[in-house]
């Protein structure tokens, strides 16, 4: 009898044990966080908190937003340019739209493919850079010329015209191409050349901008090295400026600045992605102030320092300056144009 009771007790015990194990196993499965909803479980001390970096000392902000943002109504904007009359040109996926500085649409040029960059020459011609070639449009929007393709590796990201020269930044091939206005290639600038002390461009993400400065030299952004380099039209490197730093004076992340524009006084406006900042440097490359900080340009939580290029392959803003020194920032996420004017006395 005792033996039978003992067996029954053992079975009961085993049953309870199995039941408990099943319950715990089910709980373990339910509690398993397979999509990272509960975070990484690390304390606050491990958080890569860049909130501090997004704060800008108000005393350093020397510009203010002077008008309502211009809503472009375009889907995927890429570049902005301002002509001598103050008209604003915005390049998007299938069109270039022209606005007055009050945001009135003045015209639109339909394009067959996405435009990556554009510039307006002093004679009013519009140079539009596509993925692998340049097209020229007159003031009425009629296509005047289409230059030869630069090949499948080409990715044109910036264009600048000065007199008879046109300079095109090709991020895909990491080189600046010098053309004449007829589309003939005159030379290449910036290819790594130890004999000429040219370090070569480091371009981890598709942002590679250039401008022709008032001193007659090209200013080309070398984003991977976080600096701006000055070249002669013949391709000799003269000097560079810019330091790697998350501090407000420097450029940080994998690749910054992403865009640059020249101010009427010879200074520069730079635009950074990731930790989105638009800043002003004097003609010597010394930090001069901030146009707008992250809190003004993006929503809270949208800032990041892109240590890896993969993290920031898009979302870079573009910048342009008019003759009066107003700064036009193209927000490529919201597809609008923000206008900033220098605060008097600063």
């Amino acid at each position, binding site marked *: 009898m005792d033996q039978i009771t003992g067996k029954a007790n053992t*079975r009961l015990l*085993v049953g309870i*044990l*199995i039941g408990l*194990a*099943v319950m*715990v*196993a089910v709980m*373990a*499965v339910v*509690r*398993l*966080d*397979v*999509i990272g909803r509960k975070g990484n479980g690390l304390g606050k001390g491990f958080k890569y908190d860049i909130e501090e970096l997004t704060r800008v000392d108000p005393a350093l902000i020397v510009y203010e937003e002077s008008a309502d943002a211009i809503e472009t109504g375009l*889907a*995927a904007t890429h570049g902005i340019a301002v002509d001598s009359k103050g008209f604003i040109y915005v390049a998007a996926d299938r069109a270039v739209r022209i606005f007055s500085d009050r945001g009135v649409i003045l015209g639109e040029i339909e394009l067959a493919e996405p435009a990556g960059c554009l510039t307006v020459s002093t004679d009013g011609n519009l140079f539009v850079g596509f993925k692998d070639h340049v097209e020229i449009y007159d003031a009425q929007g009629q296509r005047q010329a289409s230059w030869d393709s630069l090949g499948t590796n080409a990715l044109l990201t910036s264009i600048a015209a000065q007199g008879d020269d046109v300079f095109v930044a090709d991020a895909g091939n990491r080189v600046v191409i010098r053309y004449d206005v007829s589309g003939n290639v005159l030379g290449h600038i910036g290819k790594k050349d130890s004999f000429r002390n040219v*370090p070569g461009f*480091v371009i*981890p993400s598709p942002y590679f901008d250039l401008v022709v400065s008032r001193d007659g030299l090209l200013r080309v952004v070398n984003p*991977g*090295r976080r600096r701006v380099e000055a070249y002669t039209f013949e391709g000799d490197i003269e000097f560079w400026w810019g330091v*790697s*730093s*998350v*501090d407000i004076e420097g450029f*940080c*992340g*994998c690749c910054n600045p992403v865009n640059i524009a020249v101010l009427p006084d010879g200074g520069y406006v730079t635009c950074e992605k*990731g930790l989105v900042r638009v800043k002003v440097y004097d003609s010597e490359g010394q930090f001069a102030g901030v146009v707008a900080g992250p809190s003004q340009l993006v*929503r*809270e*939580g*949208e800032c*990041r*320092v892109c*240590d890896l290029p993969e*993290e*920031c*392959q*898009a*979302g870079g803003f573009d910048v342009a300056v008019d003759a009066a020194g107003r700064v036009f920032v193209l927000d*490529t*996420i919201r597809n609008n144009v923000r206008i900033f004017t220098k605060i008097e006395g600063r």
Partner: protein
Amino acid sequence: MMRFAQIITGIALALISCGLVWSAERFPPPDFESGHEMPSPTTPHPRQDIYEYIDVVVLLAALGLASYLVLKKRSRRAIFALTVFSLLYFGFWREGCVCPIGGTQNIVLSIFDAEYVVPITVAAFFLLPLVFTLFFGRTFCAAVCPLGAVQDLVLCRPVAVPSWAESGLRLLAYVYLGAAVLFAATGSAFIICRYDPFISIFRLTGDLNILILGACLLLIGVFVGRPYCRFICPYGVVLRQLSRLSRRRVTITPDECIQCKLCEESCPFGAIKKPAAKWSDQDYGIAKKRLGFFLLILPVLVLLGGWAGSSLKAVAARAHETVRLAERIYLEETGEVTETTDASAAFRATGKEIEELYADASSIRAQFGFGGWFFGGFAGLVIGLKLIGLSVWRQRTDYEADRASCLACGRCFEYCPREHVRLEQAKEVKT
């Protein structure tokens, strides 16, 4: 000597300064002011391709040896030794990956996603056990599968699982297989790998919950033989069906069954079928009616299951990261949440259109809706066929290892008097 040391020091300093300049040229880490020193990143070397092919050769050899030991040698001791080897090699040494069970998902994804290519070694891992099962029964389960091996080793006090519970619990594996196929086909998740209960044990690291899950299954496995293999393993579902068709299979007796009943309780997996007495006319009549009823409701069960599976699309689709992201962005856009997540902030930084994301998410939900019909229909079909199977009388005159359920472990061999006769005869021949 002093001069030489100065020269060396000078050269070293020059090299260090050059290195510092060069490192500043590339991507420097962000500035920290906490005094934290950035550790040097270490990138482990990828495993050489040759080892993958060695794994396939070892698998092939283990399957061949297991088949020989089970069918020809009939040695439980040797099968056990091979089980231990497989646990050490495929489990602890190869850390449970790649395995045929998880390989199912790779194969499914490659069928539904033209851009996904299955490595030949993964395909071999998936196919080889199937081929061997088709010819020799579940010899993979017997001594090659590391998941089976780890459970086999802890089986100390086996208790019999009632047949009704066995049949019911086995449905879990079918549902799990259906879900695994659905999630893999939609590119959402490899849930078999994600919920692999023994991976943390093999790798000696991993998520605590998975470790608990594995420990619980092993604890259950002390009393219930191989609970994962019998009630959960999705690959086992496929092996069961192939084993039904296998050309050769394990037999309890080497020649004839003398119906001594000694093997009756020998199988800890409940895979030994007793001789079946013929039903009485009354039972036969009841079973006939029941069979008719189940045949009639089979389509209803399939449709009902399909509808239920499809209805779960909104919930199931959340397994896909795009859907989760779209739902999060929607909450942020409608102001229902104020904070962003890493994923939503990263998405916004890409500059992609939210509408495009919503469209992608809708497309994935539709895939789940469509796939849900198949998943639910499959579950309904399995339940229906199981009910039909209960109403069919199968003639059995001897004690037999169930074709589908038998894991070919060889435990029953020594219980058979005929096996002892065979061994004696073999010994005599030797001497």
